[in-house]
Every structure is written in structure tokens, then in C-alpha cells.
């Protein structure tokens, strides 16, 4: 496919390999592969296209074949029905935003604090404690649901948003990620501050947190999307419809409207499109964050 004619002596001499990539000429192999990969990419996003299209159709148009990608007339009524009313998506969105935002802010701050302790302060019991954290990473959420259910029932936060927010403020993954970052900050940077008489708290707030901005942004994005998409905890710990988050509200809508396909797709659109918009705006950070977290974690 790539018909690059290279000069062996040049490459063998360790010349920059960049020179081999031909300039701005369109390469037929590359064009062909681009078309192939675009077609496959289209297949990946077809469900979204179909979902949005269907949410604007009439019931009769839903399963028409060949598929009507763009409906003849746009029917907004499904969307209006989904967003308004007592169990509307407006309520679910407010609940999801509240829960995800408070949990994320709490989780980022508390795990940064703990991560600094693990990375930068030598104290008795640090290693065994870290090992305990490590082992907790292996415990699946399924192990914890029953005891958490009993605990939340006992302390009276079952069926309240606190049942999601309080545990949501603690992430072991976040401690690992931030610890990794704090370990990578060279000691000389903090040494000067210590000599000037600054304590650990000052160094943490004035020096380390500002340095950690990119890592914090990454953790915040990952953590927020976890809370936003979290379905299991909401399913187990919430009962009242007016408390539902977006995923749970979506399920509720679909359970109650089993044959209303347009409404279902309008609800799915309501659950997906705002998140897609956020992704398209911040995609570079999100992709970097995901790539970075996995390689390190």
C-alpha cells in the first residue's frame, strides 16, 4: 500500500526517519485506507444517528425499511414529552448534576490529599495501609452492595441522594492516580520550600495542587463520567422517582412506555446527546486522560 522508495544508505545512517514520509502528495494507499476506516467508523456511530432520527419520526416510520434516516417532518412532541412533566428529564438532569458534581469535587480533593500523604510523607503504617487500599481495588462492587444497603438503611440515608454522594466522594483509583503524579514531582522542588520553613500543608496547597492541575483535570473528568453513568448504585439505593438520576430515569421511562418507540429514542437521546456534546468539546482532554490513566494505572 505504501509505495515509499527509500534510500537505504540514508536510513542506515540513522537519519531522521521523518524524511521518508513523503510530503503533501495524496497517497493512493492512504486514501483507500481512510475510506475503509471511515466506512467502519460510520458503522460505529450509526446507532446514534438512527436514535436521533427515530426520535423525530412518527410511530409508523420507526421500522420502515429501507431506513428513513431523516424523517420527512420533524416531530418534536416526543422530546417535549420526555423533558417535561413531574418525571421529566429536567428533574433527572438536576439530580445527576448535583450528585456527580458534589461527588467529583469531594473525590478529587480527598484523594489528592491522601495521595500526597502516601507519596510525600514517611510515617508508620504507610506501607500496610497502602496494601489495604490496593487489595480493595480487587473487591467488585457486587460484594459491597448488600452490606452498604444494610448500612445505609441503618443510618437513614437509603433512598436519599446522600447514599450516592457520600460513598462517591471516596475513590481508591483517584488516590492511586494522584499518588503516581506526586511521586513524579522531583524532590528539589519541595526542598527549597521546606528550607524556607513551609510545612506540608502549605506545600500541598501552594505548590503541589497548582502543579497537579493536569492530573486533577484528568481525574475529575474520569470521576465525573463514572458518577454520571452510574446506574447500579442508583438502582440499588434510590426508590423515589423524583430522586432518580439520568440512567435510572431513562430506564423508568422505557419500562413505562414499552411500545412508544419514538418516546424511547427521544429519552435515549436526552440521556446521550448532552454527554456527546461535552465529549466533542473536550475530547482532547478526555482521550488524553483515558489513555494516561490506563497506561499508568
Amino acid at each position, binding site marked *: 500500500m505504501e509505495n515509499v522508495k527509500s534510500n537505504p544508505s540514508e536510513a542506515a545512517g540513522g537519519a531522521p526517519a521523518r524524511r521518508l514520509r513523503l510530503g503533501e502528495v495524496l497517497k493512493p494507499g492512504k486514501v483507500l485506507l481512510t475510506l475503509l476506516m471511515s466506512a467502519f467508523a460510520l458503522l460505529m456511530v450509526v446507532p446514534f444517528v438512527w436514535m436521533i432520527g427515530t426520535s423525530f419520526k412518527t410511530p409508523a416510520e420507526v421500522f420502515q425499511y429501507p431506513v428513513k434516516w431523516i424523517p420527512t417532518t420533524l416531530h418534536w412532541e416526543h422530546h417535549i414529552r420526555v423533558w417535561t412533566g413531574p418525571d421529566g428529564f429536567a428533574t433527572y438532569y438536576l439530580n445527576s448534576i448535583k450528585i456527580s458534581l458534589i461527588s467529583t469535587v469531594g473525590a478529587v480533593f480527598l484523594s489528592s490529599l491522601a495521595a500526597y500523604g502516601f507519596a510525600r*510523607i514517611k510515617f508508620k503504617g504507610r506501607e500496610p495501609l497502602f496494601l489495604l487500599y490496593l487489595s480493595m481495588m480487587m473487591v467488585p462492587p457486587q460484594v459491597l452492595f448488600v452490606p452498604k444497603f444494610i448500612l445505609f438503611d441503618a443510618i437513614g440515608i437509603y433512598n436519599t441522594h446522600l447514599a450516592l454522594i457520600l460513598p462517591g466522594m471516596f475513590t481508591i483509583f483517584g488516590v492511586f492516580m494522584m499518588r503516581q503524579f506526586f511521586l513524579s514531582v522531583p524532590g528539589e522542588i519541595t526542598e527549597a520550600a521546606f528550607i524556607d520553613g513551609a510545612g506540608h500543608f502549605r506545600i500541598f496547597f501552594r505548590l503541589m495542587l497548582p502543579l497537579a492541575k493536569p492530573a486533577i483535570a484528568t481525574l475529575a473528568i474520569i470521576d465525573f463520567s463514572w458518577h454520571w453513568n452510574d446506574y447500579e448504585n442508583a438502582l440499588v439505593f434510590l426508590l423515589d422517582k423524583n430522586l432518580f438520576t439520568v440512567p435510572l430515569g431513562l*430506564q423508568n421511562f422505557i419500562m413505562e412506555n414499552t411500545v412508544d418507540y419514538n418516546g424511547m429514542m427521544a429519552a435515549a437521546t436526552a440521556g446521550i446527546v448532552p454527554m456527546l456534546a461535552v465529549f466533542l468539546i473536550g475530547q482532547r482532554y478526555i482521550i488524553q486522560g483515558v489513555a494516561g490513566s490506563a497506561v499508568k494505572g
Partner: protein
Amino acid sequence: MGKSWLKRQSLLGYAFIGPNMLGVLLFFVLPAVYSFYLMFTDYTFMNPEIHFVGLDNIRRMLGDDLFYTALRNTVVFLLSVPVSIMLAFLVAAALNKSVYWKKTLRALYFMPYITSGVAVAFVWMLLFQPADGPINGFLRAIGISHPPGWLSTTESSMFAIDIIWIWFMLGYNMIIYLAALQEIPEELVEAARIDGAKPWQIIRSVVWPLVSPTTFLLLITGLIMSIKTFGIIQAITQGGPGSSTTVLSLFIYQNAFRYYEMGYASAISWAMFAIILLFTVLQWIGQKRWVHY
């Protein structure tokens, strides 16, 4: 720098870790310990009296046909992990150097992964409609007169979920591969090219072995992540039809919150922990072997 300094350091350390540790103890460690205890009891939510029953729950699990059904379904579900990884590698290898619009394509492939699994589950539910859904509409149009029933039959439902999961995970695996491909020294690829290797041969014999640590990492983390997956399956099928899509995570949920058999559910959840532990041990062993490629 005597004893008092050490004490002060310890105090400081706990001041930093304390707030997080409190939550981790309360919401992770304590529940885990309690669940371990519940495994040996007959606790049900309806009957608050707890009796110690020894290994009864474990014995019951090992004799429970539904447990083996759940295990088998889980294995079929986990088959999607290597498939998704292979596809993701091919996509990443193509996207890495040899296409135009790389960033746009990358975003398109990644899109499913950032959406809520529950929401896309419902979209697929309609796409897979056996009678008149668009997928079977297409299959009939190209001449397949009896397309599969997808989510509606016990034989095909798990595979339909596999397809959804492959689609969902592909972008994530691709992003990790793209990061790994950046690390490959360009000279190696160039050297192979100069020796007359075809692009396909380069990918198979140079690039693929070089990213084997990444493949291994994705395989293990993917297996662990997938075995815990619950929402996307629960939302579409609730484990049905019959129990054909009841994977381990759904089986635990059903026992705990549908039948309120919480002691029994705890026992099954620790079986899941054992499997995750096994995968993790494999990772440790594998990592040691793959430190250098």
C-alpha cells in the same frame, strides 16, 4: 530528628490520609468484611435474625444449576473481550500513521465508550428487534430469509450482547493501543520496510509483538471490567429470555435484591472476587514475564 520528629511525621501523614481513609474504611473495608461474614449466614432482608450456617451457602452455590448457567453466560460474555481487543488493534494500527482525518476518526470510534451504557442499551434493543428492526431488515434485504432472533431467543441473546459490548469497548481499547503505538521506535518499522516487508507483514511481525504488553494489560483489565459489568445487560434483558443472559453480576443482584437472599448473594459475590483475584495473579505473573519485550 528524634522520636518526636517521627511522631510528628506520623501525625501529619494521618492528617493527610485520614479523611479519605475514614470513607474507605466505612464504604469499602467495613462492607467487605461484613459481606465476608454474611457469606456464612442465612441472612435475608425479610428476616432480620441472623444464623451462622457455616459453608451451607457455598455448598448450595456449587449445587445450583443456575450458578453454572451464570458462569457459562459469563464466559460467553467475556469472549467479547479478546475480539474487541483484536479489532481495536487493527483500527489503531490503521489510524496511527496511514489515514487522513485521524483525529476525527479517532473521536468517532471512541464515541460509544463515553455514552451511558444504559442509554445505548435501549437503542440496540430496538435495532435488534427480530420482526421489523433495522438490522434484520437489512439482513433480509441482502437475502438472509431467516435472520437471528438476537435478544429474543435464548440461543442468540448472549451473542447479541457480545456485539453490543464489542462495539462499546472498541474505542477504549483503540485509544490505549494508539498511545502504545506512539512508543514504538520508528527505526524498527522503517528497517522492516527497507527490508521489503509489506505493511501487513510489518503490522503482524513487528508492531503486534511490540505491543504485546499492552495487549496483555488490556486483556486482563478488560476481563476484570467486563465480569463486573451489570448495567448494560440488566437494562436490556434483566437476564432473560429465561436465564440466557444472567451473567454472574446479574445473578448476584437477583439473589440479593429480588429474592432478598443476601447471605447466598454474598457467597456468590465472593466467588466473583475469587475469579478477579485469579485474573490479577495472572497479571502479576505476566507482567514479570513481559517487563522487557
